[in-house]
């Protein structure tokens, strides 16, 4: 185990185009004859549609296509449950449901035409209170839920889209016998991903084949989605992602590519959709879910956690998408990185007429961690123990067994805790309006299939062809360094062909912090395959034994005879060298998870990443305004392959976590409509509010890790930040803030 000290130099291959403004994002592309797409959104958040008449829109000069449900195949779609239509047919279920799309020569005409579409509705009761939606007699958001195709293990029932439990021992008996029992209820507001690039999609048909340029994090899922909703083969759909202006989960899953492809087909022209910031807030099917979280934990006087009971209700919003796993993921975060003797956690993912929630950076984790870590601090107070000391005594370590029965191998949970506490100067004298809070969390790796090719050009340079998606983190941009290391070449010798579904094998895309873990593994495997080919060719050429050959500095030479050598360029000039990967994701650890329901595979955490954050805040007691002054972030993410890239994830993730803690929250009205779908009142952290952040990487040798012992990096940095901020606030004001975000008003109310 070692702490990484020195940054390693890394200049991103896409850097020059990004700093000179010559790089092209989707909205920057212009195709000859392209039309502008605008959507007609529903006028109600829950209603039956009784009539759609688009004749006036179709008659408007400059309109080349109006598309409704009648113009596309009558199919449902959705990642884990197929519960959604491209264009609403008989029912609308949230503010962003699309009834029709228009393609016109100008944005003004398209907007005007969209407004001319006549729609009659029969309003239905609007389900906004997702906790109440659990009741047996609640209005059903999807009366046909039983008819939907979906993942079997979700445990769907009425408005409950997913139900998951973690059960171990007899929690009630253990609570009855505990020295101390602490209870708490926490509520979180929904949050948006807010990539700075609003999404854009362009579709162009050539014959029966459509090319879609889109700002997606998951090009292969987008391709599959377009093929499904238009009922055409995937081979007829090519998805290309130009530079992607951030995602944070908000651009995961398939969605608007289908609408634009349908419009382009109907208009017989290329069609471009560019979202306004307002649409980027309310219309997307990806936001962080609101939750209700209840905890009851019993401990012995020495801190031993004898019982944890939890009840979680998660607002899924109107549709499932890929987010069906949230109930189990939230349950695992309610377990948290702690040793627990008896457990009963139940977690329900519930349909409502609110905007659909789906993966946003570490889905479910920041909210549950925020609640759990406050709860742990409250337990520490009840036990009269220092909160850090309580965590020292109860946090998981190598060899710990989770409540689902997973044996944890080689983890550095406690080491990250000690490091964060050391970096922040825990225990120091502080002004009376300042305090330090600490929180810990965990997050799994996701092993999945990927593939890659590495080919050599005749001049000895090469091209890496990967299905991976670069969303800014640098995980794709770092691939030339891995390949160059295998081949004795320089990173700048390689170009990248990526973000094009016609080029590379299938890939999960930029989600789940798994690009290096899976796509990086594939790229390295392809490089190794190519290396073997080069060594074979060099052995022939040099008439030397394979075992005597050394690949370095752009040449293959015979060990001990430096004059016997051949350059890679010379080898490449005579052949068609290309390496490809074999797709072998590492196996995950098993967990019996006896008695647990809603098992989707998350009952064991593959190569878990461990995180400890310590933050120092200043609270203005008069106003409730909180400033985060300093953050110490210690992470076990296995071996760090690209320090600048990894640090960048922590800087950005922590600042996102601070936003979630203090200022970012979607406010919905009584009908589930956004009240602050703009950046004036949905407040991101600015440069002047971002604190100084110290980072430490605790490098462990994790079994079943990714390439070179790496784990994921991108999502964990925003997991425990809000919890640490909350614990610091509570120390200053002497009270708990039970709702996220902890706005000045809420802090002031709690402290008054």
């Amino acid at each position, binding site marked *: 185990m070692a702490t990484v000290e020195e940054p390693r130099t890394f200049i991103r291959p896409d850097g020059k185009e990004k700093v000179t403004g010559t790089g092209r994002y989707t909205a920057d592309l212009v195709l000859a004859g392209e039309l502008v797409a605008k959507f007609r959104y529903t006028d109600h958040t829950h209603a039956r549609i009784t009539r759609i008449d688009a004749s006036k829109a179709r008659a408007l000069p400059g309109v080349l296509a109006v598309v409704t449900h009648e113009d596309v195949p009558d199919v449902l779609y959705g990642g884990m449950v197929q519960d959604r239509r491209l264009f609403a047919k008989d029912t609308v279920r949230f503010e962003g449901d699309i009834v029709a799309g228009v393609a016109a020569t100008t944005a*003004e005409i398209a907007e005007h035409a969209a407004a001319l579409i006549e729609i009659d509705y029969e309003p239905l009761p609007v389900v906004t209170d997702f906790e109440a939606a659990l009741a047996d007699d609640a209005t059903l958001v999807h009366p046909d839920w039983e008819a939907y195709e979906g993942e079997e293990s979700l445990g769907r029932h009425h408005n409950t889209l997913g139900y998951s439990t973690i059960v171990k021992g007899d929690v009630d008996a253990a609570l009855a016998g505990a020295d101390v029992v602490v209870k708490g209820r926490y509520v979180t507001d929904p949050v948006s991903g807010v990539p700075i690039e609003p999404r854009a999609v362009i579709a162009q048909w050539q014959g029966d084949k459509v090319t879609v340029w889109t700002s997606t994090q998951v090009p292969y899922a987008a391709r599959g989605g377009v093929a499904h909703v238009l009922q055409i083969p995937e081979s007829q759909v090519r998805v290309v992602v130009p530079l992607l202006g951030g995602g944070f989960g908000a651009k995961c899953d398939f969605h608007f590519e289908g609408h634009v492809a349908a419009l382009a087909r109907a208009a017989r022209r290329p069609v471009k959709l560019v979202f306004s910031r*307002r649409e980027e807030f309310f219309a997307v099917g990806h936001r962080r879910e609101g939750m209700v979280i209840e905890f009851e934990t019993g401990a012995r006087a020495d801190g031993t956690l004898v019982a944890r009971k939890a009840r979680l209700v998660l607002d899924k919003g109107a549709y499932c998408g890929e987010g069906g796993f949230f109930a189990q993921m939230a349950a695992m975060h309610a377990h948290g990185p702690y040793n627990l003797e008896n457990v009963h956690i139940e977690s329900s993912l519930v349909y409502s007429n609110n905007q659909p929630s789906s993966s946003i950076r570490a889905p479910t984790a920041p909210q549950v961690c925020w609640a759990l870590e406050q709860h742990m601090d409250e337990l520490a107070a009840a036990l009269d123990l220092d909160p850090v000391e309580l965590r020292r005594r109860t946090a998981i370590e190598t060899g710990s067994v989770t409540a689902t029965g997973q044996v944890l191998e080689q983890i550095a949970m406690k080491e990250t805790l000690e490091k964060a506490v050391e970096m922040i100067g825990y225990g120091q004298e502080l002004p009376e309006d300042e305090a330090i809070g600490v929180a810990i969390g965990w997050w799994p790796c996701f092993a999945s299939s990927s593939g890659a090719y590495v080919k050599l050009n005749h001049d000895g340079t090469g091209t890496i062809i990967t299905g991976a998606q670069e969303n800014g983190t640098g995980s794709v941009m770092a691939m030339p360094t891995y390949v160059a290391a295998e081949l004795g070449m320089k990173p700048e010798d390689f170009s990248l062909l990526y973000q094009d579904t016609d080029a590379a094998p299938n890939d999960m895309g930029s989600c789940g912090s798994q690009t290096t873990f899976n796509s990086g593994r594939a790229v390295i495997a392809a490089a190794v395959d190519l290396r073997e080919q080069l060594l074979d060719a060099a052995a022939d050429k040099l008439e030397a034994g394979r075992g005597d050959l050394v690949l370095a500095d752009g040449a293959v030479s015979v060990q001990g005879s430096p004059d016997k050598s051949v350059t890679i360029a010379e080898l490449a000039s005579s052949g068609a060298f290309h390496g490809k990967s074999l797709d072998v994701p590492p196996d995950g650890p098993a967990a019996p998870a006896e008695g647990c329901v809603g098992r989707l595979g998350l009952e064991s955490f593959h190569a878990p990443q461990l995180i400890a954050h310590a933050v120092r805040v200043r609270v203005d007691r*008069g*106003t409730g*305004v909180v*400033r985060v002054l300093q953050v110490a972030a210690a992470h076990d993410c296995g071996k760090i392959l690209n320090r600048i890239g990894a640090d960048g994830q922590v800087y950005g993730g922590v600042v996102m976590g601070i936003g979630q803690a*203090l*200022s970012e929250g979607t*406010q919905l009205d009584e009908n589930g409509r956004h*009240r*602050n779908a*703009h950046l*004036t*009142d949905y*407040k991101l*952290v*600015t*440069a*002047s*509010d971002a604190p100084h952040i110290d980072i430490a990487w605790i490098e462990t040798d994790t079994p079943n890790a990714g390439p070179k012992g790496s784990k994921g990096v991108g999502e964990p940095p925003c997991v425990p930040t809000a919890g640490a901020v909350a614990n610091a606030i509570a120390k200053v004001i002497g009270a708990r803030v039970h709702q996220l975000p902890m*706005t*000045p*008003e809420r802090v*002031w*109310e709690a402290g008054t």
Partner: protein
Amino acid sequence: MSVQTFTTAATVDDAVAALAAGSRPVAGGTDIVVGARSGKAAMPAAIVAIHRVAELHGVEVLGDGRLRLGALATHTEIAANDDVRKRFSALSDACAIVGSHATRAQGTIGGNLMNASPAMETGGPLICLGATATLHSASGTREVAIEDLWLGPGQTTALPGELLVSVEIPSPEAGSGSAYLRLEYRRQMEIAVVGASAFVTVHRGNVIQARVAMTALSPTIRRVPGAADALIGTDGGAAAIEAAGAAVAAAATPISDVRGSADYRRAMAAVITRRAIETALSRARQEDA
């Protein structure tokens, strides 16, 4: 929402003629274009750009110590002026925290005042500093006290065809200090949820003159005479400041919206007012000493 005609005025007379013909003036564009883009109000059909009118520029101290701000004086120019910072501190405070550095560089005092937002930063300071606006039209020129400039959110008392050409602030008496403070959730890029301005004159330790104004707490920014009364004749101690803050809270008619509840705003009215007064007093005492 499309603009049909666009002219650029070279002189005040050009501008006034265009206004008489029904054009709306645009200077830095930071309100009018944003308002249209975010759907608050459509772009006017006729626009006269006044940003090239030389007579409307300038931050200038007149011979008797008065400050004259051309309508096109930007927040950046005003905030950077040492004399403004020293003698008209509340205005400097306000100009330094408007929007972003781009808003401050392009946004003008005239545009800010005529946009008539009850949350604008510069209004309260100008009221407290006793400023007047000069309005010019084809039929002549008139002066209006800043506190009489607004009717309600987005509504001014300017007559059709009138252009705000300048703002004048009298020279503060010896021993004066002023301050503007807003409740801000972030350090930058904020719109006042609650704002307070205070101007005080201290003579031999006693407050002999005071004006206090509240921002974002009523349909227009306005003075709270009761708050000033609580200070005048006192030594500016904690009890007087407390009473002044309470007077503002009592006078406030706040709304509840996404930025905060009425109850919170009312409570913050007292807190922010107290802090603005404390800063103004401390500045005044330095002058008095």
